[in-house]
Structures are given as C-alpha cells and as structure tokens.
C-alpha cells in the first residue's frame, strides 16, 4: 500500500511523520538535529529517499543536511553560500543602504529531473543551486543583480527568498518570491529575471502599484497548469493566469485575506487552500477559530473547513511554508502551527485530525507520497 511521509521543520529540530495510505496511524521520528532551527526539509521527486534539510542556528550559522534513506540517517554537506562578486547593498529598515549578507536558507527545492540538483532560497535574498547533491553551492546572481536590487528591503522576518517554483513544463522557467521585494520570473534558466508584480496593490508601500516592494508571502502552482499561479500576499489572495504577467485579487468572501500559506489540491487545479489570519498586527486566526478556507473555483468563493480543528481559544499562526498536499487518490492536506500541532486531512480538507500536538513551533511542512 502506498503511504506518505510528512517532513516537518520546527524551531528546535526536524520531525518525520509517516503513515500508510489510510493516514490514520502515524509514526513520529525525531527530533532530528535537536535544538537547531530547521527552516525546511524537502524530498527529491526523482528519488523520494533523497532528502535535503536546512539546519540553522543563531550561534553556529547554516548547515545543509542530506539523507539518502528517507531521513533515517543524515550527512552534513556543503554550507558555504557565498554571493557572486561584490554583493552590493539593499535598503535597510531605516532607509539606508545595507550590505547584502547571508543569514540562512529558507527553502530548498529539489529538481524534478536530477536527484543531485537542488535550489536554495536564502536570506539576504538570493537564489543558489547545487548540482552535486548539496556539496557545493553557486549563486544565480542575475536575480540579485536585477536593477531593482538596491530598492529591496527586508520584511519583519528578514529579506528572505522563500518560494521557488520550478516550472514542470519548461526547465528554463523558474518563479521565486522575496519578502519584501515581490515575485520574479526567469525564462532563461536563471540568467535574467523580471519582476512579475503587475496587479498587486500594497497599501503599506509608498506606491501601492510599484514594480517591486510587495510583501509576497507564498505562491503555489498546480503542475498541470504551469501558467496559473496562486499567491498569498501580505494582504490579498491573488491569481495569475499568464505566468505572473498580471494578477487579480480573488480574496472574495474570506473573513480576512491576510495569511501566510497557500496550497493547491493535487488533483483539482482550481481547488485552493488558505488559512486566514486576523491581521498583520495580530498573527492568529480571527475569533480564535482555526479555519482552513477552501475555494473550489480558483478563488472568490470560499468555504470554511472546521471539522476537527479548534473553534475556540486558538491563537496559533501557520507560516508560509507550513502547508502541503499529498497526491494520493483522496488528496491529503497538511499544515503545521506555531503552537506545535501538525494537522492532517485525508479527505481534501473535509475533516481534520492532529498527527502531533506538542512539537516546537512549526516552520515548514512538506509531504511526500510514497509508492
């Protein structure tokens, strides 16, 4: 029987949650890298036993860990992330220019075609690639050297490149997003980049329609429709049907359109999920009710999914990389909270149950569907 492996990054280590296809009984493994912040763990689509983990610490810096047995054992690989050339400066919180400085890896995106190729999105914002299983990393400097770079500035969490989408239909096309610069796309394998933020409106920046400066929280895509992107912006749920050339708002009847993650159903490209958060000043669910909202029409019309989720006194957050779906026949949806719960739904969100309740704050959730 097929199964799933849920890869959970937390403030104090990584956890691996496994189950068979029923997704009722779970085995919990961890903490791996106990005491370290694990921003992201992700698996190779080519070989699901190849995992990559971003392990970081305010004391000891960045480590990258690799597993070739599905997370049973790990090997530290390359942790040198050096910007190409003179990295230059970007805007700082006080409006002055600040030197680009590497802080950590936020997101790891393994190649869909080569087990040893993996991309890393880092803070301060840049995109790196490894072609040797993480042993060495090279920056794709065209992004950072985009002419708008000196105007980028950090969001509250740092100037992080947090979203990497490799277009399954075009190996030359990559989408990325940076807080708080916005979304960018390359059509030549990373040599040159263009901002794709037309249609975004952000009241918190001097020009609400600026080319860059938008606080994009997360973007997702269904692999069967690589031209359609869904975005959770700081405020607003946005949709593009032209690969990011233009966006329109699809927040519709949500109780709040502030939030962090956004995910798309594995078999229904127009079914999307968000977790509304009260506001940018109060990072918890409206009314203390933890509700996932699902739209089956690609936005605008949303329904609250509450069965099995706490509907009173709940004040957790769900971070941008902490929601994922499996690809079993009945699509599983998963998310982790800053309160340490990882919730799973084996029926596309109709009902939920916690896999675990008491982990450290969850930073990221990825899911592998195993043969």
């Amino acid at each position: 029987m097929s199964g799933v492996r849920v890869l959970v990054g937390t403030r104090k280590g990584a956890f691996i949650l496994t189950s068979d296809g029923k997704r009722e009984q779970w085995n919990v493994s961890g903490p791996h890298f106990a005491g370290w912040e694990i921003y992201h763990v992700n698996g190779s689509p080519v070989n699901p036993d190849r995992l990559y983990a971003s392990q970081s610490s305010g004391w000891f810096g960045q480590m990258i860990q690799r597993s070739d047995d599905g997370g049973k054992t790990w090997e530290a690989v390359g942790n040198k992330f050096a910007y190409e050339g003179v990295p230059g400066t970007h805007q700082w919180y006080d409006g002055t220019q600040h030197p680009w400085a590497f802080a950590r890896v936020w997101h790891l995106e393994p190649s869909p075609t080569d087990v040893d190729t993996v991309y890393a999105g880092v803070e301060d914002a840049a995109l790196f690639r490894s072609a040797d299983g993480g042993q060495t990393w090279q920056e794709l400097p065209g992004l950072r050297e985009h002419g708008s770079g000196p105007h980028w500035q950090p969001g509250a969490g740092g100037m992080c490149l947090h979203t990497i989408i490799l277009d399954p239909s075009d190996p030359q096309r990559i989408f990325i997003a940076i807080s708080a610069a916005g979304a960018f796309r390359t059509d030549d394998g990373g040599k040159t980049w263009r901002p794709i933020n037309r249609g975004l409106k952000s009241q918190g920046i001097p020009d609400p329609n600026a080319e860059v400066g938008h606080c994009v929280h997360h973007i997702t895509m269904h692999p069967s429709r690589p031209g359609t992107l869904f975005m959770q912006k700081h405020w607003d749920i946005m949709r593009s049907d032209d690969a990011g050339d233009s966006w329109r708002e699809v927040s519709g009847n949500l109780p709040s359109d502030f939030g962090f993650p956004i995910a798309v159903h594995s078999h229904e490209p127009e079914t999307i999920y968000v977790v509304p958060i009260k506001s940018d000043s109060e990072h918890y669910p409206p009314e203390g009710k933890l509700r996932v909202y699902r739209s089956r029409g690609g936005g605008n019309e949303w329904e609250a999914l509450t069965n099995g989720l706490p509907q009173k006194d709940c004040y957790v957050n769900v971070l941008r990389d902490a929601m994922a779906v499996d690809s079993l026949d009945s699509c599983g949806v998963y998310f982790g909270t800053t309160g340490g719960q990882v919730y799973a739904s084996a029926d596309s969100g109709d009902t939920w149950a916690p896999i675990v309740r008491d982990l450290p704050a969850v930073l990221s959730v990825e899911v592998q569907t195993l043969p």
Partner: protein
Amino acid sequence: MIRVVLPHHLRNLARVGDEVEIEVTGAVTQRSVLDAVEAAYPVLRGTIRDHVSRQRRPFLRFFACEQDLSHEPPDDPLPEAVAAGKEPFLIVGAMAGG
C-alpha cells in the same frame, strides 16, 4: 597536542566528545588552532567563523586560562598553558535565546 573544548551542538556535528586534541604546527594562535580544528573536522567549517569573512560568529566566545580571548587579535599567541596542552582552548556558545 592542543586541547579544544567544543560546545554541545558542534560536538554533535563533529561526532566527538567534550574535548578534542589537535596538532598545531608553528605558532599557537586562535587562527592556527581554529584552522587545525576545521582541518580535522571539516563539518565545522563555517560554524565557528564565517566562511567568507573568517570572523568569529557573534554568539561564540573563546576562553582559556580564565580569560576571555574573543576580542584578541587572531594571530596573537595563545597562553603558554594552552600551547603546552595543560589547559584547553574553550569555544563557548553565548548564553542567549530560548
């Protein structure tokens, strides 16, 4: 042999116990000791000193013989007792965080 005490997380990364012993050729300084530690345990490269700047990470401290040597020039000689292997060179994680 130079004795070096690593903090908990670096012991785990290097898969060693509380204290390691390393050989240093030439002058025994912060730089030569750290170079030798990194040569013996490559996994620690970048964890004590920044890969690019080679500066001590801000939340790490270097102690020896009841002295804080963190701000001493990296090429200054370490105390004779460290060079003689009588006292360890301590790499300490600052007490901070939750």
